[in-house]
């Protein structure tokens, strides 16, 4: 048991770091603010949770507090990204040319992507 746990913890940390890296890469590659929020704030959720699980395997004494941190991440992460997206849309942040449909702008009778 004492030999397996550090290995599992290390693997979880590597996996978490990989997802965090992909989230960062998404920030650079994605074309507009909404797609960046998709990649940058949420691909990191799984990365953070996996990292926390990895730390919990390496330091079992911290497991309870790490679990609480994970819980707070799960509660605050969607809230912040949703408010960011809403603010971006309300302030008329331009959308990528790839965007196929904007039902929200249509319902508000705005020309899609134009500032208010």
């Amino acid at each position: 048991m004492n030999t397996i746990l550090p290995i599992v913890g290390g693997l979880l940390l590597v996996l978490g770091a990989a997802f965090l890296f992909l989230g960062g890469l998404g920030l650079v590659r994605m074309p507009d603010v909404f797609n960046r929020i998709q990649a940058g704030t949420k691909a990191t959720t799984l990365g953070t949770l996996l990292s926390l699980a990895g730390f919990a395997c390496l330091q079992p004494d911290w497991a309870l507090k790490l679990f609480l941190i994970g819980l707070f991440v799960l509660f605050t992460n969607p809230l912040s990204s949703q408010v960011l997206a809403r603010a971006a849309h309300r302030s008329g942040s331009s959308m990528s040319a790839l965007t196929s449909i904007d039902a929200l702008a249509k319902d508000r009778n705005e020309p899609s992507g134009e500032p208010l």
Partner: protein
Amino acid sequence: MNSRTVTPANSSPTSNFITHFITLLLFWVLLNGSLANDVLIVGAVVAFIIAFFFRGNLAWFSELRLTPKALFTTVAYILYYIKELVKSNINVASIVISPDLPLNPGIVKVRTKLKTAMGRMLLVNSITLTPGTLTVEMDGEWLYIHWVSVDSPDIEAATAGIVGGFERYLEVMYG
């Protein structure tokens, strides 16, 4: 924002106060990791004050149905949620690393059947936490969701694809 269109919680301020007090005190004890007298007293005083001031506003557990079926569904919901989280993370990650960036983004409109504020909050947060879908705006039962790869701009199809899976569980939990 949406709360005025939602039926008010049928919970009294007293029961709200008690659930808040217990939740806050539990978090305090877990964060401190100790049951010493001074820690407990400080936590109890602070939890009492916060719970007292917010007794009328927040309905935390009060809208949750406490039947065995609802508790069982809660566990099933968490498992389903973890599955979706992993699946969609891999999906978005594969979009990010593929050289031609296969995006088809758009904001689609979907409708929820959930009536309670707590159920809607959980639904919207679940959708937002799942990479690939992001709730931009909410107006009553209508949700506007930014979707990385729009399969169908049709309301019914998008509702089934994004909302349907989570809603099946939340309907039992919150109605």
